[in-house]
């Protein structure tokens, strides 16, 4: 009787552990990511190099990602101090353009919903950005319209910033990490 109970407990625990750890690894990108400051580079989804976790994640989410030859995707859910990005606060992003022919910056809130301006703009990009004489830029991230480079934030909740570099010479594998914008929190409501 004790043996049977012990066997049952062992089977139940293995199932919970095995399935739980598999779900954890698949639910979000956990393998092949590279930290760059508070930003995180997502693994590219090339058929030749994708690992089993990437394959399983894509099969479950149905998402279409970027291949290695196309560019890089960086995401961050926190500001420079490590606090979650929240719709109730404004943020200031400053820095220089990372080397890429084109880059786009967007937000992703709950249900992958991007922040939108009243005109329907969801992004900022290096082609339409205001810069100072040294090539530095300043972006304000807020739910309310702001002068200058305004990136609309999702209306509520916490969200993620997504920076996509298209046609970039940056190779993360060789340890050559780009300078990405620094995020500072401004006023909260």
């Amino acid at each position: 009787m004790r043996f049977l109970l012990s066997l049952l407990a062992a089977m139940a625990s293995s199932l919970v552990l095995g399935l739980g750890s598999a779900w954890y690894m698949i639910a979000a990108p956990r393998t092949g990511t590279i930290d760059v400051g508070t930003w995180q580079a997502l693994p590219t989804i090339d058929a030749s190099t994708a690992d089993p976790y990437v394959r399983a994640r894509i099969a479950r989410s149905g998402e279409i990602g970027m291949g290695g030859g196309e560019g890089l995707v960086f995401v961050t859910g926190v500001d420079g101090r490590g606090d979650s990005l929240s719709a109730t606060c404004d943020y200031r992003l400053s820095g220089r353009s990372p080397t890429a022919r084109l880059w786009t910056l967007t937000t992703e809130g709950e249900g992958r919903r991007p922040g939108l301006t009243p005109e329907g703009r969801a992004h900022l990009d290096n082609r339409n950005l205001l810069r100072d004489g040294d090539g530095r830029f300043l972006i304000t991230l807020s739910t309310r319209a702001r002068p200058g480079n305004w990136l609309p934030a999702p209306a509520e909740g916490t969200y993620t910033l997504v920076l996509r570099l298209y046609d970039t010479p940056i190779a993360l594998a060789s340890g050559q990490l780009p300078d990405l914008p620094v995020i500072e929190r401004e006023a909260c409501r």
Partner: protein
Amino acid sequence: MIGRAILWLLGVVMTAGIVHIVTVFGVPGHATNDPWEEVGKFGPTGVFVAMPRVDGATRTIPGLDPAMAQATCRFVLDQGPIRIKATPPDVYWSLSLYDRSGLHVWGFDNRGAGQKSADVLVADDVQVAQLRENPPEELEDLVIVDWKGREGIALLQVFRQQPSLARETDAALKAAECRPAPLG
């Protein structure tokens, strides 16, 4: 007693490991909303379908850049190679090909294209061999992609650089071709 506990733990960890591996490798085969299915929800196979704008209100494919306008096409090589043609406006654009499971296989952008339009022929080994034997006249202007497998997904993206180009972009996505081009 302690020996038996350690043995029990070891057994649990090893079985959990097996469950973990079987689950991770089993997911792609049993997924019902992988990229192939997702793209199929927007239109038939063998044509480009313009994706709704990524605005959170309309259903679209996860992972697409809101700064881009996109069209996707599921293709099957059974009726011959697939000819993909598009003439997007003179801004950043890219054409990417994904395999049946949604992994990136091949792609180029407007700089790689060199000329202004995209003209690509996706063919499997047998079809490539047939093309070599019996080359069509326009072969020199075509980019041939040697495709492994029978199915794939094409993604055409055009950067929304300025609102004034929106109509031209939409028209180019609508006019983009992704059709079987039978040989001979």
